[in-house]
Protein backbone atom coordinates (compact mmCIF):
# COMPACT_ATOMS: atom_id res chain seq x y z
CA UNK A 1 0.00 0.00 0.00
CA UNK A 2 1.73 3.10 -1.31
CA UNK A 3 0.12 5.60 1.10
CA UNK A 4 1.34 3.55 4.06
CA UNK A 5 4.86 3.33 2.60
CA UNK A 6 4.95 7.07 2.02
CA UNK A 7 3.60 7.70 5.53
CA UNK A 8 6.29 5.48 7.07
CA UNK A 9 8.99 7.20 5.00
CA UNK A 10 7.80 10.66 6.00
CA UNK A 11 7.85 9.58 9.65
CA UNK A 12 11.32 8.05 9.37
CA UNK A 13 12.77 11.11 7.70
CA UNK A 14 11.48 13.34 10.53
CA UNK A 15 12.47 11.23 13.54
CA UNK A 16 12.47 14.05 16.10
CA UNK A 17 9.05 15.31 15.06
CA UNK A 18 7.61 11.78 14.94
CA UNK A 19 9.23 10.91 18.27
CA UNK A 20 7.78 13.99 19.95
CA UNK A 21 4.24 13.19 18.78
CA UNK A 22 4.58 9.56 19.86
CA UNK A 23 5.97 10.68 23.23
CA UNK A 24 3.03 13.08 23.58
CA UNK A 25 0.51 10.31 22.94
CA UNK A 26 2.39 7.93 25.26
CA UNK A 27 2.48 10.45 28.11
CA UNK A 28 -1.21 11.24 27.63
CA UNK A 29 -2.25 7.59 27.70
CA UNK A 30 0.10 6.86 30.63
CA UNK A 31 -1.41 9.74 32.63
CA UNK A 32 -4.90 8.55 31.77
CA UNK A 33 -4.17 4.98 32.84
CA UNK A 34 -2.34 6.09 35.99
CA UNK A 35 -4.82 8.74 37.13
CA UNK A 36 -7.87 6.69 36.15
CA UNK A 37 -6.62 3.55 37.88
CA UNK A 38 -5.37 5.49 40.90
CA UNK A 39 -8.73 7.17 41.49
CA UNK A 40 -10.69 3.97 40.82
CA UNK A 41 -8.47 1.99 43.20
CA UNK A 42 -8.59 4.77 45.77
CA UNK A 43 -12.37 4.78 45.63
CA UNK A 44 -12.51 0.99 45.86
CA UNK A 45 -10.13 1.10 48.81
CA UNK A 46 -12.17 3.80 50.56
CA UNK A 47 -15.38 1.89 49.93
CA UNK A 48 -13.84 -1.32 51.17
CA UNK A 49 -12.59 0.38 54.31
CA UNK A 50 -15.95 2.03 54.90
CA UNK A 51 -18.46 -0.63 54.00
CA UNK A 52 -16.35 -3.69 53.22
CA UNK A 53 -16.97 -4.98 56.72
CA UNK A 54 -20.35 -3.42 57.28
CA UNK A 55 -23.93 -4.10 56.44
CA UNK A 56 -25.11 -2.63 53.15
CA UNK A 57 -28.78 -3.18 53.81
CA UNK A 58 -30.00 -3.55 57.39
CA UNK A 59 -33.43 -4.77 58.40
CA UNK A 60 -34.46 -3.44 61.83
CA UNK A 61 -37.63 -2.85 63.78
CA UNK A 62 -39.39 0.43 63.09
CA UNK A 63 -39.31 1.18 66.82
CA UNK A 64 -35.77 1.75 68.09
CA UNK A 65 -34.53 -1.00 70.40
CA UNK A 66 -37.20 -3.47 69.49
CA UNK A 67 -36.04 -6.80 68.10
CA UNK A 68 -36.93 -7.87 64.60
CA UNK A 69 -38.42 -11.26 63.92
CA UNK A 70 -36.48 -13.28 61.35
CA UNK A 71 -39.70 -14.66 59.97
CA UNK A 72 -40.21 -16.90 56.98
CA UNK A 73 -41.41 -13.85 55.00
CA UNK A 74 -38.20 -11.92 55.82
CA UNK A 75 -36.08 -14.98 54.95
CA UNK A 76 -37.95 -15.48 51.69
CA UNK A 77 -37.69 -11.78 50.78
CA UNK A 78 -33.96 -11.44 51.37
CA UNK A 79 -33.10 -14.75 49.78
CA UNK A 80 -35.12 -14.01 46.64
CA UNK A 81 -32.68 -11.39 45.47
CA UNK A 82 -29.73 -12.52 43.37
CA UNK A 83 -27.92 -9.30 44.36
CA UNK A 84 -27.53 -10.46 47.97
CA UNK A 85 -24.08 -11.81 48.85
CA UNK A 86 -24.70 -12.72 52.48
CA UNK A 87 -27.36 -12.42 55.20
CA UNK A 88 -26.24 -12.23 58.83
CA UNK A 89 -28.84 -11.96 61.59
CA UNK A 90 -27.15 -10.37 64.64
CA UNK A 91 -28.06 -9.54 68.21
CA UNK A 92 -26.37 -6.45 69.55
CA UNK A 93 -26.28 -5.44 73.16
CA UNK A 94 -24.54 -2.52 74.79
CA UNK A 95 -22.36 -3.59 77.69
CA UNK A 96 -20.04 -1.64 79.94
CA UNK A 97 -16.50 -2.74 80.65
CA UNK A 98 -15.11 -1.36 83.86
CA UNK A 99 -11.41 -1.00 84.54
CA UNK A 100 -10.26 0.82 87.67
CA UNK A 101 -12.46 3.90 87.62
CA UNK A 102 -13.09 3.89 83.90
CA UNK A 103 -16.35 2.68 82.40
CA UNK A 104 -16.05 1.77 78.75
CA UNK A 105 -19.17 1.11 76.66
CA UNK A 106 -18.84 -1.80 74.25
CA UNK A 107 -21.17 -2.75 71.44
CA UNK A 108 -21.32 -6.52 71.73
CA UNK A 109 -22.55 -8.28 68.61
CA UNK A 110 -23.66 -11.84 69.04
CA UNK A 111 -23.84 -14.25 66.19
CA UNK A 112 -22.49 -17.39 64.58
CA UNK A 113 -18.74 -16.97 63.78
CA UNK A 114 -18.98 -18.53 60.35
CA UNK A 115 -21.88 -16.26 59.51
CA UNK A 116 -20.26 -13.17 61.01
CA UNK A 117 -17.11 -13.89 59.02
CA UNK A 118 -19.02 -13.30 55.77
CA UNK A 119 -19.27 -9.62 56.71
CA UNK A 120 -16.69 -8.90 59.43
CA UNK A 121 -14.01 -11.42 58.37
CA UNK A 122 -13.16 -11.94 62.04
CA UNK A 123 -11.17 -15.11 61.46
CA UNK A 124 -8.98 -13.43 58.85
CA UNK A 125 -8.62 -10.33 60.98
CA UNK A 126 -7.66 -12.04 64.20
CA UNK A 127 -4.30 -10.66 65.23
CA UNK A 128 -3.76 -12.40 68.51
CA UNK A 129 -5.29 -15.50 70.06
CA UNK A 130 -7.77 -17.31 67.86
CA UNK A 131 -11.13 -16.62 66.30
CA UNK A 132 -13.66 -18.40 68.47
CA UNK A 133 -17.09 -17.43 69.77
CA UNK A 134 -17.87 -20.46 71.90
CA UNK A 135 -19.90 -20.38 75.07
CA UNK A 136 -18.41 -17.76 77.45
CA UNK A 137 -15.97 -16.43 74.86
CA UNK A 138 -15.59 -12.91 73.57
CA UNK A 139 -13.41 -11.34 70.87
CA UNK A 140 -12.29 -7.75 71.34
CA UNK A 141 -10.71 -5.14 69.11
CA UNK A 142 -7.01 -4.31 68.94
CA UNK A 143 -7.34 -0.74 70.23
CA UNK A 144 -9.50 -1.85 73.15
CA UNK A 145 -7.07 -4.66 74.00
CA UNK A 146 -4.05 -2.36 73.79
CA UNK A 147 -5.62 0.44 75.82
CA UNK A 148 -6.86 -1.76 78.65
CA UNK A 149 -4.04 -4.35 78.50
CA UNK A 150 -6.34 -7.21 77.64
CA UNK A 151 -4.82 -10.33 76.08
CA UNK A 152 -6.23 -13.60 74.77
CA UNK A 153 -6.97 -15.89 77.69
CA UNK A 154 -7.80 -12.99 80.02
CA UNK A 155 -11.23 -12.80 81.59
CA UNK A 156 -13.13 -9.54 81.38
CA UNK A 157 -16.26 -8.53 83.23
CA UNK A 158 -19.10 -6.85 81.34
CA UNK A 159 -22.04 -5.08 82.93
CA UNK A 160 -25.33 -5.56 81.12
CA UNK A 161 -28.49 -3.50 81.60
CA UNK A 162 -30.62 -4.82 84.46
CA UNK A 163 -28.42 -7.89 84.86
CA UNK A 164 -25.57 -9.05 87.02
CA UNK A 165 -22.04 -8.61 85.56
CA UNK A 166 -20.95 -11.39 83.24
CA UNK A 167 -17.41 -12.82 83.04
CA UNK A 168 -16.19 -13.74 79.56
CA UNK A 169 -12.87 -15.16 78.42
CA UNK A 170 -11.08 -13.25 75.62
CA UNK A 171 -10.45 -15.76 72.82
CA UNK A 172 -8.91 -13.42 70.29
CA UNK A 173 -8.10 -9.85 69.35
CA UNK A 174 -9.17 -8.58 65.93
CA UNK A 175 -8.33 -5.57 63.76
CA UNK A 176 -11.28 -4.31 61.69
CA UNK A 177 -9.11 -1.62 60.10
CA UNK A 178 -10.79 1.20 62.02
CA UNK A 179 -9.63 2.46 65.42
CA UNK A 180 -13.16 3.44 66.41
CA UNK A 181 -14.50 -0.01 65.58
CA UNK A 182 -11.54 -1.69 67.28
CA UNK A 183 -12.10 0.34 70.45
CA UNK A 184 -15.87 -0.05 70.75
CA UNK A 185 -16.78 -3.40 69.19
CA UNK A 186 -16.80 -6.91 70.62
CA UNK A 187 -18.22 -10.17 69.36
CA UNK A 188 -19.73 -13.09 71.28
CA UNK A 189 -21.72 -16.17 70.48
CA UNK A 190 -25.37 -15.79 69.56
CA UNK A 191 -26.66 -17.31 72.81
CA UNK A 192 -24.95 -14.73 75.04
CA UNK A 193 -26.56 -11.79 73.27
CA UNK A 194 -29.91 -13.57 73.17
CA UNK A 195 -29.82 -14.09 76.93
CA UNK A 196 -28.58 -10.55 77.54
CA UNK A 197 -31.40 -9.10 75.47
CA UNK A 198 -33.94 -11.55 76.83
CA UNK A 199 -35.44 -12.32 73.42
CA UNK A 200 -36.63 -15.51 71.76
CA UNK A 201 -34.50 -17.49 69.33
CA UNK A 202 -36.26 -16.14 66.20
CA UNK A 203 -35.67 -12.54 67.18
CA UNK A 204 -32.62 -10.42 66.38
CA UNK A 205 -31.46 -6.83 66.76
CA UNK A 206 -30.95 -6.57 63.03
CA UNK A 207 -30.69 -8.60 59.85
CA UNK A 208 -27.50 -7.43 58.17
CA UNK A 209 -27.14 -7.93 54.44
CA UNK A 210 -24.19 -7.43 52.11
CA UNK A 211 -24.73 -7.02 48.38
CA UNK A 212 -22.61 -8.28 45.54
CA UNK A 213 -22.55 -4.66 44.34
CA UNK A 214 -23.07 -2.15 47.17
CA UNK A 215 -24.42 0.43 44.72
CA UNK A 216 -27.38 -1.85 43.92
CA UNK A 217 -28.69 -1.36 47.46
CA UNK A 218 -31.16 1.41 46.54
CA UNK A 219 -33.26 -0.80 44.29
CA UNK A 220 -33.14 -3.68 46.76
CA UNK A 221 -34.20 -1.45 49.67
CA UNK A 222 -37.11 -0.03 47.68
CA UNK A 223 -38.24 -3.55 46.77
CA UNK A 224 -37.93 -4.96 50.29
CA UNK A 225 -39.61 -1.98 51.90
CA UNK A 226 -42.63 -2.68 49.75
CA UNK A 227 -42.70 -6.28 50.93
CA UNK A 228 -41.84 -5.85 54.59
CA UNK A 229 -43.49 -2.63 55.84
CA UNK A 230 -46.52 -4.52 57.19
CA UNK A 231 -44.25 -6.51 59.48
CA UNK A 232 -43.33 -3.46 61.61
CA UNK A 233 -39.82 -3.40 60.30
CA UNK A 234 -37.84 -1.02 58.17
CA UNK A 235 -34.97 -1.41 55.73
CA UNK A 236 -31.94 0.89 55.99
CA UNK A 237 -29.66 1.64 53.06
CA UNK A 238 -25.93 2.32 53.55
CA UNK A 239 -26.06 4.86 50.73
CA UNK A 240 -28.56 6.98 52.67
CA UNK A 241 -26.44 6.77 55.81
CA UNK A 242 -23.19 7.64 53.96
CA UNK A 243 -24.30 10.48 51.70
CA UNK A 244 -21.19 12.55 52.44
CA UNK A 245 -18.89 9.70 51.49
CA UNK A 246 -20.78 9.09 48.26
CA UNK A 247 -20.69 12.78 47.45
CA UNK A 248 -16.92 12.82 48.04
CA UNK A 249 -16.45 9.74 45.87
CA UNK A 250 -18.55 11.26 43.09
CA UNK A 251 -16.53 14.51 43.24
CA UNK A 252 -13.31 12.53 43.17
CA UNK A 253 -14.57 10.58 40.15
CA UNK A 254 -15.56 13.78 38.35
CA UNK A 255 -12.19 15.42 38.98
CA UNK A 256 -10.50 12.28 37.68
CA UNK A 257 -12.54 12.41 34.48
CA UNK A 258 -11.80 16.12 34.10
CA UNK A 259 -8.05 15.51 34.43
CA UNK A 260 -8.21 12.70 31.88
CA UNK A 261 -10.28 14.72 29.43
CA UNK A 262 -7.98 17.74 29.61
CA UNK A 263 -4.87 15.59 29.23
CA UNK A 264 -6.40 13.98 26.14
CA UNK A 265 -7.47 17.35 24.73
CA UNK A 266 -3.90 18.61 25.23
CA UNK A 267 -2.56 15.49 23.51
CA UNK A 268 -5.04 15.90 20.64
CA UNK A 269 -4.07 19.54 20.15
CA UNK A 270 -0.39 18.59 20.22
CA UNK A 271 -0.81 15.88 17.60
CA UNK A 272 -3.09 18.02 15.45
CA UNK A 273 -0.69 20.97 15.44
CA UNK A 274 2.36 18.83 14.72
CA UNK A 275 0.57 16.92 11.95
CA UNK A 276 -0.65 20.21 10.50
CA UNK A 277 2.94 21.50 10.47
CA UNK A 278 4.05 18.22 8.92
CA UNK A 279 1.35 18.58 6.25
CA UNK A 280 2.65 22.06 5.42
CA UNK A 281 6.23 20.78 5.36
CA UNK A 282 5.26 17.99 2.97
CA UNK A 283 3.02 20.11 0.71
CA UNK A 284 5.64 20.08 -2.04
CA UNK A 285 6.03 16.31 -1.95
CA UNK A 286 2.27 15.74 -1.87
CA UNK A 287 1.85 18.13 -4.81
CA UNK A 288 4.52 16.28 -6.81
CA UNK A 289 2.95 12.91 -6.00
CA UNK A 290 -0.44 14.22 -7.12
CA UNK A 291 1.10 15.59 -10.31
CA UNK A 292 2.45 12.09 -10.93
CA UNK A 293 -1.08 10.73 -10.60
CA UNK A 294 -1.58 9.96 -6.90
CA UNK A 295 -5.30 10.22 -6.24
CA UNK A 296 -6.77 12.63 -3.69
CA UNK A 297 -7.93 9.80 -1.43
CA UNK A 298 -4.51 8.11 -1.50
CA UNK A 299 -2.80 11.43 -0.76
CA UNK A 300 -5.22 12.14 2.09
CA UNK A 301 -4.68 8.75 3.63
CA UNK A 302 -0.95 9.43 4.03
CA UNK A 303 -1.61 11.54 7.12
CA UNK A 304 -4.30 9.15 8.30
CA UNK A 305 -1.67 6.40 8.21
CA UNK A 306 0.83 8.62 9.96
CA UNK A 307 -1.68 9.30 12.73
CA UNK A 308 -2.53 5.59 12.95
CA UNK A 309 1.12 4.53 13.18
CA UNK A 310 1.96 7.19 15.75
CA UNK A 311 -1.28 6.44 17.61
CA UNK A 312 -0.55 2.70 17.84
CA UNK A 313 3.09 3.17 18.86
CA UNK A 314 2.16 5.97 21.27
CA UNK A 315 -0.68 3.98 22.82
CA UNK A 316 1.50 0.86 23.29
CA UNK A 317 4.24 3.02 24.82
CA UNK A 318 1.66 4.81 26.95
CA UNK A 319 0.25 1.55 28.28
CA UNK A 320 3.75 0.36 29.19
CA UNK A 321 4.54 3.70 30.84
CA UNK A 322 1.19 3.74 32.65
CA UNK A 323 1.75 0.22 34.02
CA UNK A 324 5.26 1.23 35.06
CA UNK A 325 3.89 4.26 36.91
CA UNK A 326 1.17 2.30 38.69
CA UNK A 327 3.61 -0.47 39.66
CA UNK A 328 6.11 2.11 40.89
CA UNK A 329 3.42 3.88 42.89
CA UNK A 330 2.17 0.63 44.44
CA UNK A 331 5.69 -0.50 45.35
CA UNK A 332 6.61 2.96 46.68
CA UNK A 333 3.58 3.27 48.93
CA UNK A 334 3.83 -0.37 50.01
CA UNK A 335 7.32 0.38 51.35
CA UNK A 336 6.03 3.30 53.36
CA UNK A 337 3.19 1.10 54.60
CA UNK A 338 0.56 3.75 53.94
CA UNK A 339 -0.59 2.87 50.50
CA UNK A 340 -2.94 0.61 48.67
CA UNK A 341 -2.45 -1.36 45.47
CA UNK A 342 -3.47 0.30 42.21
CA UNK A 343 -5.43 -2.21 40.22
CA UNK A 344 -5.35 -1.54 36.47
CA UNK A 345 -8.38 -3.10 34.86
CA UNK A 346 -7.69 -4.62 31.40
CA UNK A 347 -10.99 -3.11 30.24
CA UNK A 348 -9.75 0.35 31.28
CA UNK A 349 -6.53 -0.20 29.32
CA UNK A 350 -8.61 -1.20 26.30
CA UNK A 351 -10.78 1.90 26.68
CA UNK A 352 -7.69 4.13 27.05
CA UNK A 353 -6.13 2.54 23.97
CA UNK A 354 -9.34 3.07 22.02
CA UNK A 355 -9.56 6.70 23.13
CA UNK A 356 -5.87 7.27 22.33
CA UNK A 357 -6.24 5.90 18.81
CA UNK A 358 -9.45 7.83 18.23
CA UNK A 359 -7.80 11.04 19.42
CA UNK A 360 -4.82 10.41 17.11
CA UNK A 361 -7.12 9.74 14.14
CA UNK A 362 -9.29 12.77 14.86
CA UNK A 363 -6.14 14.88 15.07
CA UNK A 364 -5.31 13.91 11.50
CA UNK A 365 -8.60 15.23 10.12
CA UNK A 366 -7.28 18.72 9.34
CA UNK A 367 -4.02 17.66 7.62
CA UNK A 368 -5.87 14.87 5.82
CA UNK A 369 -8.47 17.30 4.48
CA UNK A 370 -5.77 19.82 3.58
CA UNK A 371 -3.80 17.15 1.72
CA UNK A 372 -6.87 15.77 -0.03
CA UNK A 373 -7.80 19.23 -1.27
CA UNK A 374 -4.28 20.24 -2.32
CA UNK A 375 -4.18 21.04 -6.03
CA UNK A 376 -0.86 19.96 -7.58
CA UNK A 377 -0.79 23.09 -9.74
CA UNK A 378 -0.29 25.14 -6.53
CA UNK A 379 3.02 23.36 -5.99
CA UNK A 380 4.09 23.21 -9.65
CA UNK A 381 3.38 26.90 -10.27
CA UNK A 382 5.06 28.08 -7.08
CA UNK A 383 8.18 26.02 -7.64
Amino acid at each position, binding site marked *: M*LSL*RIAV*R*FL*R*TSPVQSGLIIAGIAVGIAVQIFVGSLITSLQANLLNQTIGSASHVTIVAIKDGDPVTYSDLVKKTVRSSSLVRTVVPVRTVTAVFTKNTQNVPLSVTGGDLTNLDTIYKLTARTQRGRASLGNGEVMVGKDFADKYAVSPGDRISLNLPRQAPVNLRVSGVFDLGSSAANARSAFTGSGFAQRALGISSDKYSAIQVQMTDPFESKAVVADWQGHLKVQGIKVNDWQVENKDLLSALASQGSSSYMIQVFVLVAVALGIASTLAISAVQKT*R*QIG*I*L*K*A*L*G*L*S*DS*AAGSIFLWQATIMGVVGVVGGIALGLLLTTGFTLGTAKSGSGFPIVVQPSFIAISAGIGLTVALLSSVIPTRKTTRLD*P*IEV*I*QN*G
Partner: protein
Amino acid sequence: MADALVTAEGLGKTYGVTNPTRALDGVSFEIDDAEFVSIIGRSGSGKSTLLNLVGLLDTPTDGSLRLDGHDAASLDKDGRSHLRNGLLGFVFQFHYLLPEFSVMENLTMPARIAGKPADKSEGAFVEELVEMLGLEGLSKKGANDLSGGQKQRVAIGRALMNRPRIVLADEPTGNLDTENTEAVYELFRQFNQQWGTTFIIVTHDQAIAQRTDRIIEIRDGRLVQDVRNTYGKPVAMLGEGLPGR
Protein backbone atom coordinates in the same frame (compact mmCIF):
# COMPACT_ATOMS: atom_id res chain seq x y z
CA MET B 1 -9.70 10.15 -39.73
CA ALA B 2 -8.28 9.17 -36.35
CA ASP B 3 -8.16 11.69 -33.52
CA ALA B 4 -4.88 13.45 -32.90
CA LEU B 5 -3.15 12.52 -29.65
CA VAL B 6 -3.64 16.08 -28.35
CA THR B 7 -6.35 18.38 -29.68
CA ALA B 8 -6.77 21.88 -28.27
CA GLU B 9 -9.59 24.06 -29.58
CA GLY B 10 -9.89 27.67 -28.49
CA LEU B 11 -8.15 26.84 -25.24
CA GLY B 12 -8.18 29.74 -22.77
CA LYS B 13 -7.29 30.40 -19.16
CA THR B 14 -8.18 33.40 -17.04
CA TYR B 15 -6.82 33.76 -13.51
CA GLY B 16 -8.59 35.77 -10.83
CA VAL B 17 -12.10 37.16 -10.62
CA THR B 18 -11.88 40.72 -9.32
CA ASN B 19 -8.75 41.49 -11.38
CA PRO B 20 -8.87 38.84 -14.10
CA THR B 21 -5.70 38.06 -16.00
CA ARG B 22 -6.00 36.36 -19.37
CA ALA B 23 -3.04 33.97 -19.42
CA LEU B 24 -4.07 31.99 -22.47
CA ASP B 25 -6.47 33.03 -25.18
CA GLY B 26 -8.05 30.85 -27.85
CA VAL B 27 -5.17 28.50 -28.53
CA SER B 28 -5.83 25.70 -31.00
CA PHE B 29 -3.53 22.97 -32.27
CA GLU B 30 -3.22 19.26 -32.79
CA ILE B 31 -0.27 17.08 -31.88
CA ASP B 32 0.09 13.53 -33.17
CA ASP B 33 1.84 10.46 -31.90
CA ALA B 34 5.65 10.53 -31.78
CA GLU B 35 5.90 14.27 -32.45
CA PHE B 36 8.81 16.20 -30.99
CA VAL B 37 7.44 19.66 -30.28
CA SER B 38 8.76 22.74 -28.53
CA ILE B 39 6.67 25.58 -27.16
CA ILE B 40 8.51 28.85 -27.03
CA GLY B 41 7.72 32.34 -25.88
CA ARG B 42 8.86 35.03 -23.47
CA SER B 43 8.41 34.74 -19.73
CA GLY B 44 4.76 35.21 -18.85
CA SER B 45 3.61 34.55 -22.40
CA GLY B 46 1.43 31.65 -21.29
CA LYS B 47 3.49 28.69 -22.50
CA SER B 48 3.73 27.04 -19.06
CA THR B 49 0.01 27.65 -18.57
CA LEU B 50 -0.59 25.82 -21.83
CA LEU B 51 1.62 22.95 -20.72
CA ASN B 52 -0.19 22.71 -17.37
CA LEU B 53 -3.53 22.56 -19.17
CA VAL B 54 -2.35 19.85 -21.54
CA GLY B 55 -0.85 18.04 -18.54
CA LEU B 56 -4.26 18.09 -16.76
CA LEU B 57 -2.64 19.91 -13.87
CA ASP B 58 -4.89 22.90 -14.48
CA THR B 59 -8.32 23.35 -15.99
CA PRO B 60 -9.15 25.72 -18.88
CA THR B 61 -11.71 28.44 -18.36
CA ASP B 62 -12.80 28.07 -21.96
CA GLY B 63 -12.18 25.99 -25.05
CA SER B 64 -11.76 22.26 -25.17
CA LEU B 65 -8.98 19.75 -24.86
CA ARG B 66 -8.89 16.13 -25.95
CA LEU B 67 -6.10 13.78 -24.92
CA ASP B 68 -5.95 10.38 -26.59
CA GLY B 69 -9.69 10.63 -27.24
CA HIS B 70 -10.54 11.71 -23.68
CA ASP B 71 -12.42 14.98 -23.32
CA ALA B 72 -10.59 16.73 -20.45
CA ALA B 73 -13.77 18.55 -19.39
CA SER B 74 -15.58 15.27 -18.76
CA LEU B 75 -12.87 13.89 -16.46
CA ASP B 76 -13.30 13.96 -12.71
CA LYS B 77 -10.30 14.44 -10.40
CA ASP B 78 -9.55 10.73 -10.23
CA GLY B 79 -9.86 10.45 -13.99
CA ARG B 80 -7.36 13.29 -14.43
CA SER B 81 -5.02 11.66 -11.91
CA HIS B 82 -5.30 8.38 -13.78
CA LEU B 83 -4.36 9.99 -17.12
CA ARG B 84 -1.52 11.98 -15.53
CA ASN B 85 -0.15 8.71 -14.23
CA GLY B 86 -0.55 6.57 -17.33
CA LEU B 87 -0.84 8.68 -20.46
CA LEU B 88 1.41 11.55 -19.40
CA GLY B 89 4.90 11.98 -18.05
CA PHE B 90 6.26 15.20 -16.58
CA VAL B 91 9.74 16.72 -16.47
CA PHE B 92 9.96 19.98 -14.54
CA GLN B 93 12.68 22.61 -14.42
CA PHE B 94 13.32 21.94 -10.75
CA HIS B 95 13.21 18.14 -11.22
CA TYR B 96 10.85 17.80 -8.22
CA LEU B 97 12.33 14.59 -6.90
CA LEU B 98 11.13 13.38 -3.52
CA PRO B 99 14.02 13.88 -1.06
CA GLU B 100 12.71 11.18 1.31
CA PHE B 101 13.15 8.49 -1.33
CA SER B 102 16.09 6.88 -3.09
CA VAL B 103 16.88 7.25 -6.79
CA MET B 104 15.24 3.91 -7.56
CA GLU B 105 12.16 4.75 -5.49
CA ASN B 106 11.81 8.12 -7.24
CA LEU B 107 12.26 6.47 -10.60
CA THR B 108 9.60 3.83 -9.98
CA MET B 109 7.14 6.07 -8.10
CA PRO B 110 4.68 6.41 -11.05
CA ALA B 111 4.59 2.59 -11.33
CA ARG B 112 3.90 2.32 -7.60
CA ILE B 113 1.12 4.90 -7.92
CA ALA B 114 -0.31 2.79 -10.76
CA GLY B 115 -0.20 -0.19 -8.42
CA LYS B 116 2.42 -2.06 -10.43
CA PRO B 117 4.95 -4.18 -8.57
CA ALA B 118 7.77 -2.03 -9.88
CA ASP B 119 10.55 -4.11 -8.38
CA LYS B 120 9.54 -7.40 -10.02
CA SER B 121 7.72 -7.61 -13.33
CA GLU B 122 8.97 -4.15 -14.30
CA GLY B 123 12.52 -5.04 -13.30
CA ALA B 124 13.92 -5.55 -16.80
CA PHE B 125 12.38 -2.31 -18.04
CA VAL B 126 13.70 -0.39 -15.04
CA GLU B 127 17.17 -1.81 -15.65
CA GLU B 128 17.02 -0.74 -19.29
CA LEU B 129 15.85 2.72 -18.25
CA VAL B 130 18.61 3.07 -15.67
CA GLU B 131 21.16 2.09 -18.28
CA MET B 132 19.81 4.48 -20.91
CA LEU B 133 19.82 7.30 -18.36
CA GLY B 134 23.35 6.48 -17.22
CA LEU B 135 22.24 6.08 -13.62
CA GLU B 136 23.99 2.76 -12.94
CA GLY B 137 25.28 2.51 -9.38
CA LEU B 138 23.13 5.39 -8.16
CA SER B 139 19.93 3.44 -7.47
CA LYS B 140 20.26 3.38 -3.70
CA LYS B 141 21.48 6.94 -3.31
CA GLY B 142 19.20 9.56 -1.82
CA ALA B 143 17.66 12.02 -4.27
CA ASN B 144 19.51 14.86 -2.56
CA ASP B 145 22.87 13.14 -3.01
CA LEU B 146 22.85 13.65 -6.78
CA SER B 147 24.19 16.43 -8.99
CA GLY B 148 21.77 18.68 -10.89
CA GLY B 149 22.25 16.73 -14.12
CA GLN B 150 21.78 13.41 -12.39
CA LYS B 151 18.61 14.64 -10.71
CA GLN B 152 17.17 15.73 -14.03
CA ARG B 153 18.01 12.35 -15.55
CA VAL B 154 16.16 10.63 -12.69
CA ALA B 155 13.22 12.99 -13.32
CA ILE B 156 13.27 12.02 -17.01
CA GLY B 157 13.33 8.36 -16.07
CA ARG B 158 10.42 8.91 -13.70
CA ALA B 159 8.46 10.63 -16.46
CA LEU B 160 9.05 7.61 -18.72
CA MET B 161 8.49 4.95 -16.06
CA ASN B 162 4.91 4.12 -17.04
CA ARG B 163 5.81 4.30 -20.76
CA PRO B 164 3.49 7.29 -21.33
CA ARG B 165 2.52 8.35 -24.85
CA ILE B 166 3.21 11.99 -24.04
CA VAL B 167 6.03 13.56 -22.05
CA LEU B 168 5.55 17.20 -21.05
CA ALA B 169 8.73 19.03 -20.14
CA ASP B 170 8.69 22.53 -18.66
CA GLU B 171 12.08 24.20 -19.04
CA PRO B 172 13.83 20.86 -18.50
CA THR B 173 17.26 22.36 -19.15
CA GLY B 174 16.64 25.67 -17.39
CA ASN B 175 19.00 24.87 -14.53
CA LEU B 176 21.56 22.78 -16.38
CA ASP B 177 24.97 23.53 -17.87
CA THR B 178 25.66 23.04 -21.57
CA GLU B 179 26.89 19.49 -21.18
CA ASN B 180 23.86 18.37 -19.19
CA THR B 181 21.51 20.31 -21.48
CA GLU B 182 22.88 18.37 -24.41
CA ALA B 183 22.54 15.11 -22.49
CA VAL B 184 18.88 15.85 -21.69
CA TYR B 185 18.14 16.70 -25.32
CA GLU B 186 19.81 13.51 -26.50
CA LEU B 187 17.78 11.45 -24.04
CA PHE B 188 14.52 13.07 -25.16
CA ARG B 189 15.33 12.46 -28.77
CA GLN B 190 16.43 8.90 -28.09
CA PHE B 191 13.17 8.02 -26.30
CA ASN B 192 11.16 9.84 -28.99
CA GLN B 193 12.79 7.86 -31.77
CA GLN B 194 13.06 4.47 -30.03
CA TRP B 195 9.72 4.35 -28.24
CA GLY B 196 7.66 6.77 -30.31
CA THR B 197 6.96 8.91 -27.26
CA THR B 198 5.53 12.35 -28.00
CA PHE B 199 7.54 15.15 -26.41
CA ILE B 200 6.14 18.64 -25.79
CA ILE B 201 8.93 20.81 -24.47
CA VAL B 202 8.48 24.31 -23.11
CA THR B 203 11.82 26.03 -23.43
CA HIS B 204 13.66 29.32 -23.54
CA ASP B 205 16.66 27.56 -24.98
CA GLN B 206 16.78 28.32 -28.70
CA ALA B 207 19.37 25.61 -29.24
CA ILE B 208 16.86 23.08 -27.97
CA ALA B 209 13.89 24.62 -29.80
CA GLN B 210 15.73 24.66 -33.11
CA ARG B 211 16.37 20.94 -32.77
CA THR B 212 12.70 20.01 -32.30
CA ASP B 213 10.51 18.92 -35.22
CA ARG B 214 7.83 21.48 -34.62
CA ILE B 215 7.83 24.84 -32.89
CA ILE B 216 4.80 26.50 -31.38
CA GLU B 217 5.22 30.09 -30.28
CA ILE B 218 2.99 31.69 -27.69
CA ARG B 219 2.90 35.45 -27.28
CA ASP B 220 0.64 37.26 -24.81
CA GLY B 221 -1.41 34.13 -24.41
CA ARG B 222 -2.03 33.63 -28.09
CA LEU B 223 -0.56 31.12 -30.48
CA VAL B 224 1.31 33.24 -32.99
CA GLN B 225 3.28 30.62 -34.78
CA ASP B 226 3.07 26.88 -35.31
CA VAL B 227 5.70 25.66 -37.76
CA ARG B 228 7.46 22.50 -38.76
CA ASN B 229 11.24 22.59 -38.52
CA THR B 230 12.89 22.34 -41.90
CA TYR B 231 16.29 21.26 -40.66
CA GLY B 232 19.04 22.66 -42.83
CA LYS B 233 17.13 25.72 -43.94
CA PRO B 234 17.60 29.02 -42.16
CA VAL B 235 15.42 29.26 -39.07
CA ALA B 236 14.17 32.65 -40.24
CA MET B 237 12.21 30.90 -42.97
CA LEU B 238 9.96 29.41 -40.31
CA GLY B 239 8.57 32.84 -39.50
CA GLU B 240 8.92 35.46 -36.86
CA GLY B 241 8.94 34.83 -33.17
CA LEU B 242 11.72 32.29 -32.87
CA PRO B 243 14.26 32.88 -30.17
CA GLY B 244 17.26 34.84 -31.24
CA ARG B 245 15.50 36.91 -33.76
